[in-house]
């Protein structure tokens, strides 16, 4: 039987999935690509006027060059993406969500009233967080590594280019803000455990939901943030969470079944589960 990657239903920063809920997933697979591929580096500012808080939105994809709607080469139908906000009340820091996704995959609740039949395998989730962009990034030191290997983003790049990393704060050609700086500026006192290590920055463990991840703070503090998109993930499927009697949100299911008919090979798979 054909199968597809699913998100792992372990405890998340936003709690457990709710009965009757409809969740867009980006599942884990040994045949996929590392999470870093899907990070926006630098994080991208939210368009003026977009209002995503508690409102995941379906957005028709437009060709940046022509301004015309993008049509799926397979179906000839417009492509729709999901714009989703990650709330700071559940994920105080953008990296909380990134690290959780690295471990469990992504699972974001959708409004069942959205026309889910428009989503296809071509659709993506664009995820935004209120603390995505470090406004005074030029005042901060370079991150040790930019895992997207972007030039003038990190210490490694400055070393390769033979540039003086100590002068990065005054280098007008420096690029950023590098998303990997987000791990540096998370404060040590937000960790569940701190391991002091001689000659190195402290190793901190932070817990979000059931996920525990490590980071090494530099001690730099950021007070000025802007919201932005941090991740652009493929949607691998939709999870319909069952009520106690085993049924699911029938309205959402009906739309997904319509999508399976009209989108044929490009249709998004879905499954019903109790968790």
């Amino acid at each position: 039987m054909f199968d597809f990657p699913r998100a792992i239903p372990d405890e998340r920063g936003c709690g457990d999935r709710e009965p009757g809920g409809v969740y867009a997933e980006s599942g884990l697979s040994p045949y996929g690509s590392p999470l870093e591929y899907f990070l926006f580096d630098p994080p991208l500012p939210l368009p003026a006027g977009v209002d995503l808080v508690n409102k995941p939105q379906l957005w028709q994809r437009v060709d940046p060059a022509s301004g015309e709607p993008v049509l799926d080469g397979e179906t000839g139908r417009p492509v729709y993406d999901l714009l989703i906000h990650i709330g700071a009340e559940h994920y105080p820091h953008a990296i909380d969500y990134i690290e959780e996704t690295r471990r469990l995959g992504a699972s974001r609740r959708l409004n069942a009233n959205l026309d889910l039949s428009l989503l296809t395998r071509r659709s993506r989730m664009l995820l935004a967080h209120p603390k995505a962009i470090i406004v005074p990034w030029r005042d901060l030191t370079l991150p040790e590594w930019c895992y997207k290997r972007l030039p003038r983003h990190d210490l490694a790049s400055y070393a390769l280019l033979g540039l003086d990393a100590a002068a990065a704060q005054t280098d007008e050609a420096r690029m950023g803000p590098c998303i990997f700086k987000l791990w540096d500026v998370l404060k040590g006192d937000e960790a569940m455990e701190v391991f002091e290590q001689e000659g190195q920055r402290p190793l901190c463990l932070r817990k979000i939901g059931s996920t525990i991840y490590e980071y090494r703070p530099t001690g730099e503090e950021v007070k000025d943030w802007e919201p932005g998109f941090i991740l652009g993930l493929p949607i691998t499927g939709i999870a319909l969470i069952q009520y106690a009697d085993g049924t699911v949100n029938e309205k959402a299911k009906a739309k997904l079944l319509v999508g399976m008919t009209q989108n044929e090979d490009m249709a998004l798979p879905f499954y019903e589960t109790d968790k």
Partner: protein
Amino acid sequence: MPRKPKQQSLLEGDVQQVDEKLLALLQRLGITALPPHETMLLPLERMVVPGAALLTRPAARLVKSIQKVGLLQAPALVLLSGTTPHDPEATFEVVLGRRRILAARMAGLSVVKCEVYASGTPQLGALLGLIENEQRSAAWIKEIEDLRRLIDEGVGMTPGDLADFGFHRGTLAERLKIVRLPHPILTSILAGKVSQEVAKRIARLSPAQQEQVAQRVREGEDITANLITGVLRVQINTGLVPAQTALAQAWAQLPEPSAHPMAGNGHTIPVATVGVTPLVDASDGALSPAQVLAILERFEPQTSANPALSRVGILARVLIKELQIAVRASPLTPTSTTETQEREVTHV
């Protein structure tokens, strides 16, 4: 999972709780003492309730309560016409207690006790109107008008001042954006021609787009939901160009999708974070993740009993959690796959 918050009224809490702050704010407004006012018994027919048509109907229990015990808190009025409050032809505008006056009318009262303020204190009128914490959805236009009066009259109040005074920050910020819309749009809003939802969307437009809408209003076009939605869509599409471009570039850099069915029909590329090595027992004598997990699960309980191992215990628990996920996530782990299929219904 996050839920949509309830719409907040502009002022949180009871008006009684802000009386001290009111005095401080009056000083900021340049009013060193409360304006002259007196308590009077006035006929309801001489009172004008601004925005009465937009106010929600007073609750039946409020009407019943007024029928039984009358108005416990005197509404505040300002002189609207007439030379003095004692002029028998004078009329009054209700600035505080509009719903109570409407309820008193429904309760069949003919006169009520009121606090009558001298005219000529427009800032106070606006402020008292804002403070009135009985405003509900339809009264938003009056809130806008009151805010506009406070701003137009050069009081110099900042959102921070108002927030300190007890106003809900989020709603206030939204209302202030609406107040600052170009004049033709604001006029349409105050005339009740634009719904609150559309007004909020206009406030999300960039200044240039707002000016374009204002020009269309000047040319006689009505502000419709479709018009604003279209303009907003174009603006957001423009703002999404960097994201679309970045995604297109990222996709172009990815390797060709694997032919394996777990790669999703060759079209979507799932996130891979688990190891690419199959999680089966190794034949070369090395431990498999499942074996390491079993060992750690046996070891971890000892760490809580021994203080010297407390920090090791933390790391052990992290490793256990990660190994549990890795073992469960593996498509080659027979037990987890079987269990999953029993409880799930898959549609592909």
